[in-house]
């Protein structure tokens, strides 16, 4: 059986990003179908499809939509196109190559919750992508798919883009809403959650979904929930865009059903290790924030689904696979990832702000060969103390890589500190003299 293609469908069609071409290939039929159903029927269809959020957490999309209170007059949809996790580059591909798919999906979501407007929040670097989307929105408007009385019915909805300006934290949904409101892009205290009155955009109930999540929706409307559910595994319906970077021959974005294994992706599709004679060593399956694993046979034969990756102690998350061969020192990886989170911590809570600062400092010391054996324990403790007590999940994201790199690759750390353990400590007097 050839693999089903949902998200990258139409990629072979020249100019599928243009409105006319998209329509010639069945575009806006999903929205048309949705408009002929009741909003609740649309929500149920998405619920039944088993579609889960692709932004990382995997929350069922239809369930999220059903949380929106029906009796509130003003509601919003925000599409999360902040895509800033290290190793993630799938949303950009969807928006560059098939932007109408996203606009159509967002309008279906808006109809389902009866939203007044859709805001697509893009990371600031997606400047060109945002301008193309603006053009697409205007093209769809001309045919009555955006604005007043969509498709000739009673439903009206606007669609806008909004560019961020370089802050990873704005991908966190409550920070995104603050940023969109013109406030500092820092997370909010929850509850109230975005779906609740008081918690969403301008205090109104709001759905926040990732680009890839939303891009599935037109297909589900056209083909039905049952067809969608046939693809993938029991708990992971549909296909996923896997972003592969690092030490493989053919890095890139690939669409596969959740039943595919790491081996199929990394060997059959990506061609194995990029340097002849080298072997795979480690894998970060979900960017910098997810637990690192040994890239061994057990992992290679695991299906890349939510439930299967949980069994091997990691997550599939946003499916940002960073592949490392045996030339890589995992202490260096821990350092790179920590620098990222130190830079991106918004500074609102102390454990995250201070924790990332200290982690970075001590790892640098270890890498420079100046660490002591107890430094490894020290960073492990700092990381463990950060987890679970911060306002948003970034604190956890920053702690995770440290905890798992040390747990799974202790030798990589110990090799740096062992030397120090062997050498006798330099007497303080001598050190002072050397500084003269």
């Amino acid at each position: 059986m050839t693999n089903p293609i949902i998200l990258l469908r139409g990629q072979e069609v020249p100019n599928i990003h243009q409105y006319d071409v998209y329509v010639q290939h069945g575009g806006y039929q999903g929205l048309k179908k949705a408009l002929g159903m009741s909003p609740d029927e649309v929500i149920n269809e998405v619920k039944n499809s088993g579609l889960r959020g692709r932004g990382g957490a995997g929350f069922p999309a239809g369930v999220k939509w059903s949380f929106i209170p029906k009796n509130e007059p003003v509601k919003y949809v925000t599409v999360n196109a902040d895509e800033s996790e290290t190793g993630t580059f799938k949303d950009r591909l969807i928006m560059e190559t098939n932007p109408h798919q996203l606009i159509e999906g967002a309008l279906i979501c808006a109809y389902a919750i009866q939203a007044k407007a859709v805001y697509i929040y893009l990371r600031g670097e997606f400047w060109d992508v945002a301008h193309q989307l603006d053009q697409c929105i205007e093209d769809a408007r001309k045919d009555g798919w955006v604005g007043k009385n969509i498709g000739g019915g009673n439903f009206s909805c606007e669609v806008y883009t909004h560019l961020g300006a370089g802050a990873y934290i704005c991908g966190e949904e409550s920070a995104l809403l603050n940023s969109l409101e013109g406030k500092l892009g820092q997370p909010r205290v929850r509850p109230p959650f975005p779906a609740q009155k008081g918690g969403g955009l301008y205090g109104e109930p709001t759905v926040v979904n990732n680009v890839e999540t939303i891009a599935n929706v037109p297909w589900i409307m056209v083909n039905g929930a049952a067809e969608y559910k046939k693809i993938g595994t029991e708990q992971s319906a549909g296909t996923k865009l896997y972003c592969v970077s690092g030490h493989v021959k053919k890095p890139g974005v690939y669409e596969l059903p959740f039943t595919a294994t790491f081996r199929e992706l990394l060997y059959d599709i990506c061609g194995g290790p990029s340097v002849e004679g080298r072997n795979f060593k480690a894998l970060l399956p979900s960017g910098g924030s997810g637990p690192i694993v040994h890239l061994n046979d057990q992992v290679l034969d695991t299906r890349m689904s939510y439930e299967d990756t949980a069994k091997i102690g990691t997550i599939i998350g946003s499916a940002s696979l960073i592949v490392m061969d045996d030339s890589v020192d995992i202490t260096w990886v821990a350092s790179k990832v920590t620098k990222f989170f130190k830079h991106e911590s918004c500074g609102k809570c102390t454990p995250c702000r201070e924790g990332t600062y200290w982690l970075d400092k001590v790892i640098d010391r270890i890498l420079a060969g100046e660490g002591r054996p107890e430094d490894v324990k020290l960073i492990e403790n700092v990381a463990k103390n950060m987890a679970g007590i911060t306002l948003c999940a970034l604190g956890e994201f920053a702690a995770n890589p440290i905890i798992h790199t040390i747990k799974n690759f202790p030798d990589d750390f110990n090799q740096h500190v062992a030397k120090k353990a062997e050498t006798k400590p330099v007497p303080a007097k001598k050190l002072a003299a050397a500084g003269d």
Partner: protein
Amino acid sequence: MAIINNDKYTQRINWHLSKYPDKRSAVMPLLYIAQEEYGWVSPEGINEVAQLCDMDPTQVKSIAGFYTMYSEKPKGKYWLQVCNDLACALRGADEFHHDLLHHLGIEEGGTTDDGLFTVEHVMCLAACDKAPMLQCNFHFMENLDMAKMKAWIEEKRAELEKENS
């Protein structure tokens, strides 16, 4: 020039202000316009944006300071933001960044004397499969190496010389 009452921007400013139920939400797009006009988010730009969004200038300044893409000091004509985050670094981005600085004779974050190039390293730009890569004034340049960069730099220098002669 100002951005208020400037024909070049009026339409875009009004459009951004019309997108949101609250003017304050337009602060980010308008800061980009100010940056386009002044080359950085200058005090004049901050004041104008504050006026347009009904905000206090100090609030606008703190927003500008929170995000890395608003420049708080003037940059070179070409602002090169090199990604040297993990995925790119696995494909030689650290060396590329280092060599680029060396070739231009500047330090990290510095600008060349002719005012043409500023180089900074940044975190993941969502183009990890095309490393080494960088962002030049909001446009991506991908699958780079030093030979390509040197040729590009020469081209830009020649353009400047032509302009000046």
